[in-house]
């Protein structure tokens, strides 16, 4: 079973993603901010990470850099309400950029594609 780490500062969204992804058959852990995410990297050892951009403290982009420092090949999806980062050079380090909507089909599809690559 593939493991996914969901990082988002909003409780409701953490709940939502966990429920939705577990239904898809993944093992899911959540983190509320960047530091927690980094901690869970070594303990949970996820196969994929979804990362919110706007977070207090360390934001998504910085967290991404830190993750990359340790795991160069770990698939990371940047997940945001903000569309304009899509063309930002700083986000190139991620494997995908998905805009949050109430319909999670695109997100799920992206996860499926990224995980099937290995």
């Amino acid at each position: 079973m593939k493991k996914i780490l969901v990082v988002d500062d909003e409780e409701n969204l953490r709940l939502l993603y966990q429920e939705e992804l577990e239904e898809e058959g993944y093992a899911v852990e959540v983190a509320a901010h960047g530091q927690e995410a980094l901690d869970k990297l070594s303990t949970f050892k996820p196969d994929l990470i979804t990362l919110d951009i706007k977070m207090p403290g360390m934001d998504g982009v910085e967290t991404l850099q830190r993750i990359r420092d340790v795991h160069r090949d770990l698939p990371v999806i940047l997940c945001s309400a903000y569309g304009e980062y899509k063309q930002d050079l700083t986000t190139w380090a991620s494997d995908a950029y998905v805009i949050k909507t109430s319909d999670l089909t695109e997100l799920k599809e992206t996860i499926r594609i990224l995980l099937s690559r290995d």
Partner: protein
Amino acid sequence: MKQMNSFIQRECEILGKIIRVSNSTLEINTRLTRIVGILAEAFSTDFCALYSFHEDQSSFTLTASSGRDLPEPDSSGNSQWGGLMEKVAQSRQPLFFEGDDQPVGNLKGMMSKVNSPFSLALIPIADDGFFYGVLLLYYAQLRRFGDEERESLLMAGSAISGPFRNARLDATRVAQAKDRQANQLSLLYEINNALLSTMKFERILHIILTAITIGDGMGFNRAMLFLTDERRNRLAGMMGVGPDNAEEAGNIWKNLEGKRDKLSEILSSISHNYSPKGTHLDERVRRVNIPLDKEECILARTVTEQKPFNIDYERDGLTCPEDCELNREVNCILRSKSKGGIKSYRFATVPLWGREGTIGVVVVDNLYNGRPITDDDIQLLTMFTRQAGLAIENCILYRYLEEAHWELKEAQETLLQREKLAALGEMAANVAHEIRNPLVSIGAFTRRLYNKLDNGLYEKRYGEAIIKEVDRLEGILNDVLSFSKASKVVFEKFDLNRIIEETLMGMEDELKSQGIVVEKSLDDNLPEIPCDYQQIKQVFINLFSNSRDAMRGGGRLTVKTFPLSQESRDYIGIDIGDTGGGIPSEVLHNIFNPFFTTKGWGTGLGLAICHRIVDGHRGVIEVDNDPDRGVTFTVKLPIEREA
């Protein structure tokens, strides 16, 4: 006989000397002094003098003298001597007093004053027209004046009138010249006042040309004004003032001159009475447009050589060439209807001066009265054109200033508008972002609930409603966000045709299912243009979607790309047309406004977004509406990015 001969010889000698001095170029007083010296010696006088007569004061002044002073010093007319001289002046006859004659009139008085005997000869200096003065010879003794002597003296008197006459003529000429100068200056002053009274271009030209043609002004028959167009290196006709025929000439001048108003007042009120617009001459002048490098053209030469020309065909055989194409085309005013053909036509050109060189030409002629144009005329015109040129330049500069000011104001307003919109856009974006997250929760959790409900349950209807509204809200958010994002453009070179093809491919199924036929004619040779891929794609998506929405029951979607040039810039044009029945003309002017829509759904932001994006690319979007058939949108995008 011998006596006679020697006398005549002596006569000739004396006269010869006098005449030689008279005709010399010495200053007049010097001449007169020398002449008096000659006479004093020749006639051995005790006192010899010349007195000049002043007509206006009826008095005499001593001009030259030789010998001791008169017993009674007399250098003004207020004494006995003066009285004698007046008598000579009136009678134009000489007066001889030989000491023992019967004293007549004033002489009686003088004899009592002067205690010793004396003799006197007073000779008039005059010619046919004028009395110039008196030659006086005084002897402090008795002396006889012989007949030959008297003859001699009379001839001397005559010879002396020469220098006086010349001096008088000189004085007259100088006075006349001074008079003319004063008149000219006064004229220029009057005209200048009039020129200062207005900043309107046409009025200034009108005043200038009227001042040149009006009788109280410089009195030329016709005047025309041309200004240089530096950019195109041409001379363009601006205005012509002058009657169309001799009869009209007579009438106009009679009218204007009847009023003895001050010239400046006439000129200042000019445009209300007598407008040149519409007269033959004015029309013809305005049509003239000459290249400045046209060598044989006298008008052009006046500007390039910066000097006036005074052309008199009779005198110098110089005129405009017969085969000048302007002549054929516009029936060049320079050669029109001259009395007796070319031979008697005279005209002059004077350059118009601005601050840094010539700005045009003024052409004058005397077509109707054939009066020759003198150097004096040219000189006056030249003085005038300096003023005139400056006035015109000022006027033009003023106009530029006004225009620049207006443009600045407009730009300021546009900027203000843009800033307002930008601020609004930013606020909207912020709000949209804040709303997105909660919306995700609401929508997604509702879906989960919806999926958990049994299919037959009525409450599923509620779930549907919530999900649909959330979708709608997300749609609005997307539109609002792309609208505000449209101002941030990232330029890279792309092939427009490819973007179009990609977009169409993405909508292929949709369009087919609605029965819409797509007709493409994309020009193969278009260059890649700098644009923002995402944004331009959005424009096409929006336009294609609109067309699709308009053709619910099927139709034809035409897409065309082509190169085009507008106002010396190159663009790529994209035509997107549909057969969806067109836009009702009363709402046509609103379609690009945000939140305007004729559909029952949607945000009404689609076309507003297109407009914003195209604007950000410095392009244009236009609509061609056929109210019963369909609409064609044309997008024009520049090939070059503006510096």
